[in-house]
């Protein structure tokens, strides 16, 4: 193979990953045909590999995002932040994770044991499944479902079951209150998000995540057409993932730690992992829907996707470290009285504009 061809292949792989990947897939199938094993097993293995890759990304990304948050908050607070463990403190979160995993795992005597153990798994499962349809680059997506965005809404709703179950199973009044709060909060904020996304789907004409990004090609990003929707999405999504100023389910000064009060060791690590992965997912969805996804000059698509996502993550962190916590009834009023009506009007205007212009 010539040198130029090799470069071309790498370029192709970086910028338009979909085609080479499916070619590779076809090649694998052809090679597999040589053996006398049904191709189902190959599909299974490939799916397993993809899942492992996504899981690896989730874990590494969570480690990095936690480190980033610590450093970023330290900058806001005129501090230094972790700098002792490893170079620049990069291994700090690794140490934390290893410690959490080898910590004693307590199941308090009066908890509902099965539900108590299942809850972190459910929460993490919801997050993990959402990760599958995030388009990191052109074709770099684990499963480009035709109903991608609907799938995200559906699966991310799974987390609330875990939160509520964890709060209930802990047999702790604070936990129960935290679980109830999270249920109410997610129900209230899921609807504005849904309405906002409807507008985007109308503009893009598809529910496919890749399709939505392609509809914005040529720098016709939807944030230009739907600035209000973008703001509503940021606020509501931030509330949905329970981060300050909407961190009512685990409001430390009110409910100790809300639904995670009784959790320790590995189970807590799963909640923690889910929380930070959710932060990434929300930002990634915002980038996909409003900021043109992977589109950008000079760099390969997935680099642009990560840069944009982390920009949104930074904004969300900035919000977290600046605002005081909202009270629970204000939170509900804010969603039902302001966000939802504005989102509906926005949707109506979008519909009229699309229909007549």
């Amino acid at each position: 193979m010539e040198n130029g061809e090799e470069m071309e292949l790498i370029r192709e792989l970086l910028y338009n990953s979909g085609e080479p990947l499916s070619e590779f897939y076809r090649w694998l199938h052809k090679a597999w045909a040589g053996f006398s094993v049904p191709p189902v097993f190959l599909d299974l293995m490939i799916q397993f590999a993809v899942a492992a890759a996504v899981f690896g990304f989730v874990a590494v990304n969570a480690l990095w995002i936690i480190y980033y948050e610590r450093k970023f908050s330290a900058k806001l607070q005129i501090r230094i932040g972790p700098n002792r463990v490893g170079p620049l403190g990069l291994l700090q979160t690794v140490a934390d994770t290893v410690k959490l995993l080898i910590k004693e795992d307590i199941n308090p005597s009066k908890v509902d044991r099965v539900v108590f153990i299942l809850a972190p798994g459910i929460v993490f499962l919801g997050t993990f499944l959402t990760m599958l349809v995030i388009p990191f680059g052109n074709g770099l997506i684990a499963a480009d479902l035709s109903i991608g965005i609907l799938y995200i809404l559906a699966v991310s709703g799974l987390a609330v079951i875990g939160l509520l179950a964890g709060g209930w199973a802990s047999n702790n009044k604070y936990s129960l209150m935290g679980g109830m709060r999270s249920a109410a909060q997610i129900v209230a904020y899921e609807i504005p998000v849904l309405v906002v996304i409807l507008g985007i789907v109308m503009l893009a004409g598809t529910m496919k995540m890749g399709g939505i990004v392609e509809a914005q090609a040529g720098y016709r990003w939807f944030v230009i057409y739907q600035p209000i929707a973008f703001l509503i999405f940021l606020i509501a999504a931030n509330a949905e993932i329970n981060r300050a100023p909407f961190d009512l389910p685990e409001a430390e000064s009110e409910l100790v730690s809300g639904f995670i009060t009784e959790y320790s060791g590995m189970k807590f690590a799963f909640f923690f992992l889910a929380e930070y992965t959710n932060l990434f997912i929300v930002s990634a969805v915002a980038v996909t829907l409003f900021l043109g996804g992977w589109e950008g000059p000079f760099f390969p698509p997935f680099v642009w996707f990560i840069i944009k996502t982390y920009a949104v993550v930074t904004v969300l962190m900035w919000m977290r470290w600046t605002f005081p916590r909202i009270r629970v009834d204000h939170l509900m009023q804010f969603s039902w009285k302001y966000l939802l009506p504005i989102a509906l009007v926005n949707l109506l205007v979008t519909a009229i504009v699309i229909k007549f212009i």
Partner: protein
Amino acid sequence: MEQKTAFEIQELTSDEYVLSMGPQHPATHGVLRILLRMDGEVVVNLQPDPGYIHSSIEKICENRKYDQVMPYTDRMDYLSAVSYNLAYALAVEKLMGLEVPNRGRHIRVILAEMNRIMSHLLWFAAYGIDMGALTPIWYAFRERENLITLIEMQTGNRLTHHALRIGGVKNDLPTGFVEGLNKFLENFNDMVDEYEALFIDNVIFKARTKSIGVLKKENAISYGVTGPNLRASGCDIDLRKLAPYSGYENFSFEVCSEKNGDSWDRCKIRMNEMRQSASILRQAIDTLPEGEISAKAPKIIKPTPGGCYAKVEGPRGEVGAYVVSAGTDKPYRVKFRSPSFSNLSALNEMCAGVKIADLVAIMGSLDIVIPEIDR
């Protein structure tokens, strides 16, 4: 081991449940237990249960010589140790008929006002955490650290200063103290403005504190609430103006007061008081008189028999010391009147029908220090 109080045994309606907040809870500023009778998120009724840091200070004071009592006064309210020092020193000096020289009184005022700023800064920091704003604490602690460095130059300790002696102060101001204080005061007002804009004037913060935890004026007086909490209820009583001590009559400052008596007013007053204290400090270092710092107190202090109650305006309100002498070298009885004790007793009055988040906001705005309640 745990005994149930009458509050817990009372019959509950089918919607209610009892929630025990504390003694180890992030919002109780130390170890205070509050028994809450809740209906969902709403507080129906509550009963504080202090005493988790009771360390028998009043009993110890009866068995110490007059000057040995002073270190214990630091440890009741470590945020404004000088207020307690001052109340106790004033009471004993009154019993003995000692007159503190001008410079000594001036230094006392400087230390007391520095303590007031330090205390309010800590309140600001802790209130931020209570309200879920996690950044104010670091800014407040930066300022506090500057002040602590200065006060450490003077007294040798960061929190429990033991700065005063009966008859005056322990040390004269060290070299570099006045310059350092001047440098601190230069941009302190700008800092307070900035913090106020960042936190107190925040929309979310206003929504959470305005008309929450209203304490009516007559209730405040009946409950013996003092300090910023009283002045927020529209009663501009400040002992520095009402019954001046230690030369406060020579300084010009405003008594900050508000009308509504809600949490936001209490916050506003503390921010304003920091500015007023800075102004007093500026006047004090400009008009610092020369001379002795301490009156000549006898080696063994033996006041004439009798009782004396001296009170000063601490950061949290009226700090008082009731010293009874029996003519020996040990006080017969020392009773400290702590402002948080009375302020906390009015909590139930403010909290009927609020949410649990409001309860945290109200408690934080009262600015209680637990060891001061328990002693």
